[in-house]
């Protein structure tokens, strides 16, 4: 008994010691929650003959699977421009509503822009119309104020110096008035354009019109209806006969289809008059 006990006691002790050492060793293994020793050597022992083949197969498996993964990944990347076929009904509905929304917005924008365009065109038209009127006004007022040369149908009246008396300013003025009454639009005496503020006065040297001495024979050009103008001058008892009878001057009225009046009058600088704003 005693030797048996003696022999077993150290055995148990040493076994416990061994166990303790093994536990400590296992605890030191820094793997997961469980020590993973034990299974591997057993498997290795069983597959010892074809261990290298098994490892090769493993590697091939891993390679093939990883290749599959990479392949699928790249294909999916290249497939991002996917068609609408894969979309669900919900997505398609959303897409349609979004698109129609956008279309509506764009239509609104287009209408806005079209309105702007029309208003701009109208403005441009208005401006053009204003320009046209301004040009017309300029022409009319230019002719009226004597700024522009004029041409048209009319009469040319030649009055020689009176044999009985010199033609005075009042008579010349009434001649101009008669012509105006008959509808003369543009009148010129010798080299002087007759405008609204034209005056004729008597001086010792003869008639002076707007500061320019008038030499005989007086040539009066008038643009208007030739027949009316001629009648106005040569009517019985009119200014023509008065000139002939009282002053002994010869009055020669010629109608022409193209009376050209090149004389222009300087526009005055207005000192006092201002346009009403």
């Amino acid at each position, binding site marked *: 008994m005693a030797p048996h006990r003696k022999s077993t006691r150290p055995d148990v002790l040493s076994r416990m010691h061994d166990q303790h050492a093994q536990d400590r060793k296992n605890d030191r293994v820094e793997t997961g929650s469980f020590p993973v020793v034990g299974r591997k050597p057993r498997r290795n022992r069983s597959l010892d003959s074809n261990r290298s083949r098994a490892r090769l197969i493993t590697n091939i498996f891993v390679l093939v699977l990883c*290749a599959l993964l*990479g392949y*699928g990944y790249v294909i999916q990347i290249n497939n991002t421009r996917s068609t609408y076929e*894969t979309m669900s009904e919900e997505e398609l509905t959303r897409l349609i509503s979004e698109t129609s929304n956008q279309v509506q917005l764009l239509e609104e924008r287009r209408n806005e822009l079209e309105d702007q365009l029309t208003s701009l065109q109208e403005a441009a038209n208005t401006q053009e119309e204003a320009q046209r009127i301004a040009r017309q006004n300029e022409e009319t007022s230019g002719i009226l104020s004597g700024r522009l040369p004029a041409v048209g149908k009319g009469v040319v009246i030649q009055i020689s110096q009176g044999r009985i008396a010199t033609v005075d300013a009042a008579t010349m003025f009434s001649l101009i008035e008669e012509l105006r009454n008959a509808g003369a639009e543009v009148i010129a005496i010798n080299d002087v354009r007759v405008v609204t503020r034209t005056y004729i006065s008597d001086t010792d040297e003869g008639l002076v019109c707007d500061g320019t001495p008038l030499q005989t024979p007086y040539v009066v050009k008038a643009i208007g209806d030739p027949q009316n103008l001629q009648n106005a001058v040569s009517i019985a008892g009119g200014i023509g006969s008065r000139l002939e009878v009282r002053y002994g001057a010869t009055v020669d009225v010629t109608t022409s289809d193209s009376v050209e009046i090149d004389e222009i009058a300087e526009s005055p600088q207005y000192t006092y008059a201002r346009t009403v704003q």
Partner: protein
Amino acid sequence: MAAVLGLIIGVVIGIFVQPDIPVFMQPYLPIMVVAALDALLGAARAYFQRSFSDKVFVISFFSNVITATLLVLLGNQLGVGSQLQTAVIVVLGIRIFSNVSAIRRFIFRG
């Protein structure tokens, strides 16, 4: 080593060979890729934990891919395809993150 080599080979093949994916497979391919990625990262984690097993890897690879695809297919049939797809992606994403963090802990011990 084999895994990296396989990935490179797959990417190269994918770049040069671009087949038309069948329409019925198109919605499932991204899910498959994510599931496979999760399996791969799980295998990497197991490798670092020295508990890597090829059988387990192959089975987990296929089971991951098939489960994810079936889930999405089921969702499509039930009319909650997009939601279930999102759920699968979220779960796989969480798993990928936890695997990556485990791997990181093995690489930088401590």
